[in-house]
């Protein structure tokens, strides 16, 4: 089935519904969604704004809504998402739109810090390098979440984020869970405190869209479940330990 022309609808402007534009884009054998957007910008409308950098699924900057599903556009082949020969591309959900397909990622990264997704070190450069045992359960658990590229696909997929602007979101909470299991991180108390408050891990309804759409096949829903268990355990142990 060789297609000559793709019917590409792009949502533009903060009021996306009112500003849809259609473009005819030549179809190629090998073409990602990002290639399609780039073709429009380079050949049809140079004013189209969008964001990308690495084009190989490492930088996490090119995520967009493609036919209602958040995806990393640089690693999504167009044939996988075409509806006939049509595709609709919009800015990521749950984030303020700056222009066209570029969203403001600040709320996403601010919540990353709010969830204590930062390094809590206790050693100085004068201390010897602490050995890390790769075989412990904690290390294996931490390893399952460290390939996050901060693309915000999970954040865009989550209905709880849509409904509650205080909710920290899947990526930030998964980062907190990773650090909680990291032998090099000393921030246990502050992490548990940050994720057990309003908008923390207990806000999650386990809808699972984060896990269903994570382009790197990570499992933020299970990471958040881990935080739920850990915060509950620390709540019941308070006073005894």
């Amino acid at each position: 089935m060789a297609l000559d022309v793709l019917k590409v609808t792009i949502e533009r402007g903060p009021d996306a519904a009112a500003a849809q534009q259609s473009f005819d884009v030549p179809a190629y054998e090998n073409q990602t969604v990002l290639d399609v957007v780039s073709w429009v910008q380079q050949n049809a409308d140079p004013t189209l704004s969008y964001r990308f950098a690495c084009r190989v699924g490492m930088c996490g900057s090119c995520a967009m809504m493609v036919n209602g599903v958040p995806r990393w556009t640089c690693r999504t082949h167009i044939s996988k998402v075409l509806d006939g020969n049509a595709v609709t591309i919009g800015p990521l959900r749950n984030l303020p739109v700056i222009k066209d397909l570029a969203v403001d990622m600040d709320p996403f990264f601010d919540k990353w810090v709010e969830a204590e997704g930062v390094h809590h070190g206790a050693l100085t450069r004068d201390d010897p390098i602490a050995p890390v045992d790769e075989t412990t359960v904690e290390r294996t658990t931490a390893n399952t979440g460290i390939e996050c590229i901060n693309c915000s696909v999970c954040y865009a997929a989550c209905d709880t984020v849509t409904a509650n602007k205080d909710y920290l979101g899947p990526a930030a909470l998964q980062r907190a869970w990773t650090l909680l299991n990291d032998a090099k991180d000393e921030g246990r108390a502050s992490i548990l405190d940050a994720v057990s408050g309003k908008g923390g891990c207990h806000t999650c309804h386990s809808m699972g869209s984060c896990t269903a759409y994570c382009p790197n096949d990570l499992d933020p829903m299970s990471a958040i479940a881990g935080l739920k268990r850990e915060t509950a355990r620390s709540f019941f142990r308070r006073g005894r330990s």
Partner: protein
Amino acid sequence: MKAAKGITSRAHPLWLAYILHRLSGLALAVFLPLHFWVLAMAVTDPERLDGFLRLTESGVVKLAEFGLVFLLTVHMFGGLRLMALEWLPWSASQKTLAVGATTASFLIAVLFFMRAI
């Protein structure tokens, strides 16, 4: 509008299990007050209760009872699923095996139960 606001991104088993659990819970919450109200008739107005119980002989009510049993089943297994999902630190394959074993033993138990009645 289709790209950003469509519901396409919800069409996956995890989300469907979530919504089924919540909606069955809501429906049961609506049913419960009615249930207690009818039961209370046994004390306040026994004749009216008898009249109502005769109503339950009709096919429509019998059909509604199937719906009720469905809601209860869906909600109970939805709750068990949620608790296993959030409170058991097992791997996905361990949970799949556990669910498989539970389902098999449940089916066998139902078979024996059906033969007994």
